[in-house]
């Protein structure tokens, strides 16, 4: 019984890491229709930026902030110089951002070397909670809390604020939104910056659990794609649903049927894509 509880807890906390990972991507892909496959690399860079700050100043939360700012700026650069000019050219966006992802991984490799680094848990959240005879780290619970906060923030932004309304309007009809006198270009640039910053934020928060190594972007990108596609594009609650499904399935798969666990997420991903390409909840973006 307590194994089951621990597995569930692990699954849920993993799901929230996935949510944080995918939230930024969901924002730019699902809402703006821009495919940024460098997202995994941005996550990885966030982890390295944050760890560099921690190594010098030894403050975890400043590291998180700098990670978010740094990757936000990198993302802004990607959008401003490249993706802005490639609207509607999806294959070109994909080729470009995959290539940039590898280039970033190479730069990080150049600066920080190939070896994996682990982040230290911030002192606020060290320690474990006892569940029956087993222990569960507090940091993972904190991740759940932070994930929930981000979810609520994004949900609120999407449904209640003017920015959210502009984005939703732009999703339906870009020209009409522009002709109403709204500076859609500025809004989408800011949204892209925010999405990239979320990747870096999540990257630093993930370091005590996932660590950081230059080639981690690939696997994380695929996870992100799965989460966003399974849950549904266009709504942040869809991303949460997708993260829960993939996170729980993956954790339970690894715990109970390890021999096929590598494929369970892929299978779900393919099945959902083939039956409902727009995801479980969500609307067809394209």
């Amino acid at each position, binding site marked *: 019984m307590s194994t089951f509880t621990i597995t569930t807890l692990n699954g849920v906390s993993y799901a929230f890491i996935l949510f944080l990972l995918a939230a930024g991507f969901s924002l730019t892909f699902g809402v703006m229709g821009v*495919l940024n496959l460098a997202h995994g690399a941005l996550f990885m860079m966030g982890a390295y930026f944050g760890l560099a700050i921690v190594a010098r100043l030894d403050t975890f939360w400043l590291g998180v902030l700098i990670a978010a700012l740094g990757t936000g700026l990198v993302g802004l650069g990607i959008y401003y*110089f*490249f993706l802005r*000019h*490639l609207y*509607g050219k*999806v*294959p*070109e966006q*994909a*080729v*470009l951002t*995959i*290539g*940039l992802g*590898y*280039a*970033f*991984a*190479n*730069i990080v*490799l*150049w600066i920080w070397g190939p070896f994996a680094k682990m982040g230290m848990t911030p002192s606020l959240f060290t320690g474990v909670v006892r569940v029956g005879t087993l222990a569960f780290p507090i940091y993972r619970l904190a991740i759940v809390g932070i994930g929930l906060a981000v979810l609520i923030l994004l949900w609120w932004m999407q449904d209640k604020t003017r920015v959210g309304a502009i984005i939703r309007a732009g999703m339906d009809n870009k020209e009409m939104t522009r002709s109403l006198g709204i500076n859609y270009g500025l809004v989408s640039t800011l949204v892209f910056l925010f999405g990239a910053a979320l990747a870096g934020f999540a990257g630093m928060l993930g370091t005590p659990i996932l660590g950081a190594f230059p080639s981690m972007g*690939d696997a994380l990108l*695929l996870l992100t*794609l799965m989460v966003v*596609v399974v849950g549904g594009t266009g709504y942040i609650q869809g991303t949460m649903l997708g993260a829960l499904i993939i996170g729980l399935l993956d954790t339970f798969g690894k715990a109970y049927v390890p021999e096929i666990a*590598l*494929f369970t997420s*892929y299978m779900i*991903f*393919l099945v959902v*894509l*083939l039956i409902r*390409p727009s995801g479980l909840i969500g609307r067809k*973006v*394209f």
Partner: protein
Amino acid sequence: MAAQPRPGIFTGRLFTRKAVAVPAERSVRSFIPVVLPVIVIGALLLLLPTFVPSYIQSLVTKMMIFALFGVSMNILWGYGGIPTFGHAAFFGFGGYACGILIIHGGISNFFLNLVLAIALTALLAAGLGIPAFRVYGVGASDNPIYFLLVTLAFGELLVRVAITARSLTGGSTGLAGIPYPQLDVLGITINSRSFYFLVLIIVVVCFFIIYRIVNSHYGYALRGIHDNERRMQALGYNTWLYKYTSYILAGAFGGIAGVLFAYFGGVMIPGTMGMAMTDIVFLIVILGSASVYFGPIVGAVVIVGVEYLASLYVPDRWPLIMGAIIVVAIMVIPQGIGVLLLDLWRRLIHGST
């Protein structure tokens, strides 16, 4: 009928994708602009091994293999307008099929091996094509994002399968020890020089077949689907079948490139089926230009050449250089080097016009 080419238009872009109306000219005029360069390049390639060192010979072998890889992908992207992101899956699968047949199947005959590997790759493409084109829809060349994701997932799924099925594929360290092809039947032993000629022959034959395919009625129908799929449907074409068969064709030719690559390197690693490889082949096509038949060949020569130079001087910075090439290819010369070369060549032929 609308897809039937109208002859006689030599103005504008000769082989461009949009120019549905222009077939390959068979008049005398096309001798100098089209046939002559092919003959010159062919002769150069035939004579090459006699006057260059062996590392250049092996570099050119690799260029030819990747050129075939790029041209096979261009059947889909350049002619059909279908942006697959899992084309490397067929390349890698063909190579793995070849290697597994030799090492575990004990099939040493080169031709049997090649035919079996092609058949298996085509079968895989036929299997994957059915679900993939379910999400492609009609006229999706403007919004192919789900097709792109599905094909990407196929490739990555195959990578995971190759990592897991260790007894067959050698796991993540790869399938090593693939020997040079055996051509004892013809009384030839294959070394690096005769392998160069073997690759040259196979690649040229494949180029010729693909050229005939894309310039046949079938190829023009494919271009028609690229331009306006609804109209092609209204004209009575079963567009799904065209797209589906072109996917299988491209997969099979990609598989041939993979087989040659397996012999060339002697080792297959799971990554050859994944996202990174697909990105390289897509780059080869975009850099060389998708709208010209020989575009991917130019792209392959440039990319493989630069990769070789990078491996000599800055071996650790190849991804960075590749990223830079991608940025240049997409942002600076989106039409591709092939179109630039074609314009230059025309200017040379026709004077200053």
